[in-house]
């Protein structure tokens, strides 16, 4: 029996449950496998090691997870676009270094250090924005001396490989 639920809000409890089961069967599992494996792993490690289920280890686990959790949440924004940001880890490393140096060596207030780290991260990423908007070729388009000295052998068409066409990446593609 299949229940079609239009917006996902119709139906009583039983129909909602049936629809949820159908969705899971149809492949939309969401976080279900990871929640299940969370339970399995907890029982497994608790059976194997008595220290695992103590409050001390639990609190320890939470503080250990926080870094990874934040990074995974950062990557969601990019993975949702079917891309991967390989520089996220290094960005967090740079922020780590900046934060430690600002607070420990320069003895700046930690709130200002956090703000500086955030600005630094966004600014570093906006280099990508500038290059996207202006085109990667904008670096070369300034036509420095050695390139301007290259002789042009043929008259007529001027789009040789060293003479870069004066158009932005916006003309070429709207979404890449």
């Amino acid at each position, binding site marked *: 029996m299949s229940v079609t639920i*239009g*917006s996902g*809000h*119709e*139906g009583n409890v039983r129909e*909602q449950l049936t629809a949820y089961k159908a969705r899971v069967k*149809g*492949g*939309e599992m969401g*976080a*279900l496998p*990871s*929640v299940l494996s*969370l339970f399995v*792993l*907890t029982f497994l*490690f608790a059976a*194997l*090691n008595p220290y*695992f289920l103590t*409050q001390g*280890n*639990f*609190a320890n686990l*939470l*503080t*250990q*997870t926080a*870094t*990874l*959790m*934040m*990074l*995974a*949440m*950062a*990557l*969601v924004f990019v*993975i*949702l*676009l*079917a891309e991967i*940001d390989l*520089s*996220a*880890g290094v960005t*967090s*490393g*740079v*922020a780590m*270094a900046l*934060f*430690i140096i600002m607070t420990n060596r320069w003895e700046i207030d930690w709130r200002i250090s956090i703000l500086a*780290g*955030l600005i630094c*991260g966004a600014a570093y*990423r*906006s280099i*990508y924005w500038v290059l996207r908007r202006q085109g990667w070729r904008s670096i070369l388009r300034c036509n420095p001396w050695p390139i301007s000295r290259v002789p042009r052998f043929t008259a007529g068409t001027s789009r040789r490989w060293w003479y870069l066409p004066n158009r932005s990446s916006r003309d070429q593609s709207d*979404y890449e």
Partner: protein
Amino acid sequence: MNDNLPGWMGWAFLAIAITVMALLNFYDRSVRARNGLANRPISLMYTKLGVSIVIGASLVALLNTNRSQSIKEISGVPIVVPIALTVLFLGTLLLDRTRFGRHLYAVGGNPEAARRSGIKVVKIRIIAFMLCSSLAVISGIFNASRVGAVEATAGKAIVLSGVAAAVVGGVSLFGGRGRLIHAAVGALVIAIIDNGLGLLGLPAGINFLVTGGVLIMAATVDAVSRKRTSASR
């Protein structure tokens, strides 16, 4: 960072979190009702709220007991937990309830369709990447304030664990599907494997083996379930 909240503050945070959750739910229901749309049965909502209250209260109660091995008392919810939960809440709000979030899902699902319906795809991409680095900065600051020191290779190895965490949690590598809470749960799974295997005293290589195996399984589940969804549509 390694500090803990005082006991009452943990309870206060739990109360605020539950209240916000309930208020948002009631607000949504009233908006849907006002516009003549169907609502989910209210008993489901109460069940969800009840389960979160029970889980949250037991966690706070557990963390508020003394967990010190020596004379000095250590108790309370670690201070990262409220910070991480706040970021999670704000990010979910951004993804679920703003125009930017809708556009992000649209671009992830089908960039060409999104472009044709007038979404500025390049802008969405750039904002997504900037958000990603800003959150990565927060993760770096978490790490820095936990360890209290930094080395030159900091953050080199953690990206793949981050991707693994997101994929294990059910965020699709093919884009357009997944939520922030999924990544958080996935990160918990990866961290529990790390922590538990470390306690068993196995060599470090085993840890990578198990994490890699879990990642392969998650990616397979993702690919297979995607195939199944596209077949059923």
